[in-house]
């Protein structure tokens, strides 16, 4: 293949915690056309879980009438994922991204969601406005087949 493989999908769903599992499967199965390693797939499923859970719990505070949108682009071995909500937004993004920081200690949140995203993805950008919502932009460069085989 000389041409770079390009594809995209966009997914919206109700802000219900039972959709977390569906969102993981949808994104991971879309990405499976790039033949990632099972490890890379697990990384991606984990970050999707974290971001969707954040939208449900923090963005919409468990109100089920919110909408969560996930956009995914593929370009060659580069995977870009955007997870958005129109919920409460984050007042202080820098603070929110600190390891162990959580605004909901009463729910026994670990405060490690953003840290996990940073560990598993190559790029993590947070775009949030109070009262308007939050968009998380994630990029991961999958290993090429040569890289996988050499590993």
């Amino acid at each position, binding site marked *: 293949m000389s041409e770079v493989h390009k594809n995209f999908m966009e997914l919206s769903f109700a802000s219900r915690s039972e959709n977390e599992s569906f969102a993981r499967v949808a994104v991971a199965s879309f990405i499976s056309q790039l*033949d990632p390693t099972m490890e890379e797939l697990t990384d991606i499923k984990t970050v999707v879980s974290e971001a969707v859970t954040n939208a449900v719990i923090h963005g919409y505070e468990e109100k089920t009438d919110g909408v969560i949108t996930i956009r995914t682009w593929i370009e060659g071995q580069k995977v870009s994922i955007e997870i958005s909500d129109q919920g409460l937004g984050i007042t202080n993004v820098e603070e929110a991204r600190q390891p162990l920081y959580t605004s909901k200690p009463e729910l026994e949140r670990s405060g490690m969601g953003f840290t996990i995203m940073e560990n598993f993805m190559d790029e993590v950008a947070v775009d949030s406005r109070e009262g308007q919502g939050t968009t998380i932009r994630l990029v991961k460069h999958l290993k090429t*087949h040569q890289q996988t085989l050499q*590993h």
Partner: protein
Amino acid sequence: IGEIQRFLRDDGMVKVSRSLKELSNRIRKAKDDLTKRLGRSPTVNELAEAMDVSPEEIVFAQEANRAPTSIHETVYE
């Protein structure tokens, strides 16, 4: 209950939650075997070929071994 289960199975009435869990256990085993054999994490196509299902179905079935897939799970079990 074993009788009923066999009947449901034969009749194509087996519930997804149960059937996917079986597939997902087989996937986990195949994944462990391949990881040992290759000395690295297998790609989803390598696993899909070994299991003779599509990569997308691998992803779907794998999920069944996580949290309860169904709001009825406890009722059915």
